[in-house]
């Protein structure tokens, strides 16, 4: 082990052993074994500079040093959540129109 980085997300800090020649993707794969989140859903942000780490670049390229703090964010099913919200909004509207057509038309 040449170095380690601290990956933080909400209340948890992961100490990850790594090498400056490893790529961001290697780190994400290590995280995958720890947190069961697919590599594609992970995003790592270097806290010193605020830069998003790119999968193909090595840690040394992106100035990630020993003891660096990296923030982890996860992609959740945003799209489906949005669709769900839109649908439920329409259902609510239809329900309101069916029951009190007049006030809803006024609001619209």
């Amino acid at each position, binding site marked *: 082990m040449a170095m380690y980085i601290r990956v933080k997300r909400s209340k*948890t800090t992961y100490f990850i052993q790594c090498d400056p020649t490893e790529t961001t993707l290697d780190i994400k794969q290590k995280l995958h*074994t720890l947190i069961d989140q697919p590599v594609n859903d992970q995003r790592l942000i270097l806290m010193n500079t605020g830069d998003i780490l790119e999968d193909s670049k090595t840690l040394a390229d992106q100035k990630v040093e020993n003891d660096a703090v990296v923030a982890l964010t996860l992609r959740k099913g945003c799209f489906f959540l949005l669709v769900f919200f839109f649908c439920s909004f329409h259902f609510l509207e239809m329900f309101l129109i069916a029951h009190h057509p007049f006030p809803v038309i006024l609001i619209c």
Partner: protein
Amino acid sequence: MKKEDTVKLISAEGMEFVIDKEAAMVSQTIRNMLTSPGGFAEAEHGEVTFPEISAVILEKICQYFYWSLQYSRGKETEFHIEPELTLELMMAANYLHT
């Protein structure tokens, strides 16, 4: 790096630090907790809670574990300690036998 090779140290506030077992074993106290026979919860789940140690101190301790590993492998760097942490850090170190 496998999940079984890591331990989770939990501070007084409930902040969690996931570190390699190898690093945690730098502390004699944690080593005893994790290796003592009898199926203790700490050993089985790989989780140790420290209700007396704050997150700031526990993070510094984890950094020390890794520094210690690096040092033992011949990488001689300095370990920086903020003066305001020294007292609490010494008390924690005494408890952890590091």
